[in-house]
């Protein structure tokens, strides 16, 4: 079992969700994160004091999946999340030793 994690631009989440949907992915978990990297931030000014905001809002998408589907899923996410502009983000894959569906206690692939 694998876990595909993607850190993407907020706007792209919907496209990514649809792309995964199209692949028949049944579920996913997302969370708000903030990213620091090549993409530059912006400036804010309050009563003459200037602040540079370096961290930008990003969305983390996590998908648990069977190893067989990993490549399809990674490609789908990369494709849907790409805008071609700096800050599009990263996608990475890690190994998962066990998955359980809380409701039924099913394990492994059945849990997805």
């Amino acid at each position: 079992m694998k876990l595909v994690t993607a850190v993407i631009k907020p706007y792209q989440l919907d496209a990514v969700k649809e792309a995964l949907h199209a692949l028949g992915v049944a579920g996913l978990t997302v969370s708000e994160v903030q990213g620091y990297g090549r993409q530059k931030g912006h400036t804010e000014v309050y009563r003459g004091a200037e602040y540079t905001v370096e961290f930008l809002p990003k969305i983390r998408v996590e998908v648990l999946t069977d190893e067989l589907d990993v490549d399809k899923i990674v490609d789908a996410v990369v494709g849907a999340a790409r805008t071609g502009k700096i800050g599009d983000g990263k996608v990475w894959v890690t190994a998962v030793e066990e998955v359980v569906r809380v409701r039924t206690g099913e394990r492994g692939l059945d849990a997805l």
Partner: protein
Amino acid sequence: MPEAPTIDSGNTVWLLVSTALVLLMTPGLALFYGGLNRAKGVLNMMMMSFSAIGLISVLWWFYGFSVAFGSDVNGLWGDPGAYLGTKTFLAETDLWGATAENPSGIGVPLYVFMAFQMMFAVITVALISGAVSDRAKFAGWLLFAFGWATLVYFPVAHWVWGGGIIGADLHALDFAGGTAVHINAGAAALALALVLGKRLGWPREGMKPHNIPLVALGAGLLWFGWFGFNAGSELTVDSVAGLAFINTQLATAAAVLGWIVVEWIKDRRPTLVGASSGAVAGLVAITPACGFVAPWAAVLLGLVAGAVCALAISLKYRLGYDDSLDVVGVHFVGGWIGSLWLGLFATNSVNGAIGDVIGASDGLFYGGGLTQLGRQALAGLIVTVWSFAVAWVLAFGIEKTIGFRLRAEEEVGGIDIAEHAESGYDLSPAAGSAGGSAFAMAGLAGTKPAAAPAAAPAEPAAPAEPVDEKVAG
């Protein structure tokens, strides 16, 4: 006084302004209650107040004012046809209080007085809603508001101010609404809380205020508007109006101190929720007394009311009723304190109307003996019993018929979503910063898959899609 009916522009301006101030109190209350509530029910909480403005204003105009201030029929209600909404009252002679000997009355157009009293009816009903946050079906609330206003507030206002049993016969004092408004609403709130039952998880689950600056804002607007409520109730521009005004300020200020001192001792920390609650407790307590006691007695009243209410709010945990936002602890208890205070400190020396007009006697500490204290207690009792009983029957009836209590899953999911299909806030740590609220923009608001397009860089993806037939609306 001139023979020809003439408008007293000073009194009229003061009433116009006071009316606007009292209207503002209900949105203020909505913010106060809304901020004290959990986030998932803030809109329903505010909606109960806003809908009360809508519904009760119209009822008051149509027949409520007649029931309360129409010529007394039997001590219990006024002639319902007296000022029916279908009629128009704009004649030269349509001045409030006009009589043969005094054709100008208080020199205030009837509609101005009607509007002023209208706002009292509105907020009294809205006050009740604090007891049943997060669990009352909105349709049930509207039905309850309609029934309670008709069967309780309108008549009780008549009893107290319209020439009915409490004011005219019992000679009990209530300058601006200790019995008619606060004891009245508090008793109904208790009945409602008992019939509807506790919120799921209460008191085991913590249900802390979700937005305290909103609570303080609401308290501030209530304080501001309350000057119209209290000093406006003198109906004329005279020194008693000034007395009512400064007493309102002094008692409220003292109550803020009283409440936070109790917190400091009891909970080791004074809080802003406490200061705001203390202000409201002081405003409630001084309401019946503001025009009838000396300033020093008002300060004392504020200290007592603030301290006692700060303790009273814990009763619900002791006795186990879920008076969610402490309508009983603040309005019922505060109303009683203020009403009884008159039995102790009312004095004809600050307001001649006490003896001459209302036929009440001085309070205990002014040599009036226990007479007035007894009258005040009896007045409070009558209102408490009637309001509680009718509210209980109404609530029970609604629960048994159309249903009043929300379904458990809906309550857990949040009444705002269930009853109003809205959620209070769409903020996020990233809100407004580059990219705005990541979730809001990223489509966590969700989309109908069917409607979802592949997002182009230039155009953010669609978090939501107005449904066509809706849109065609």
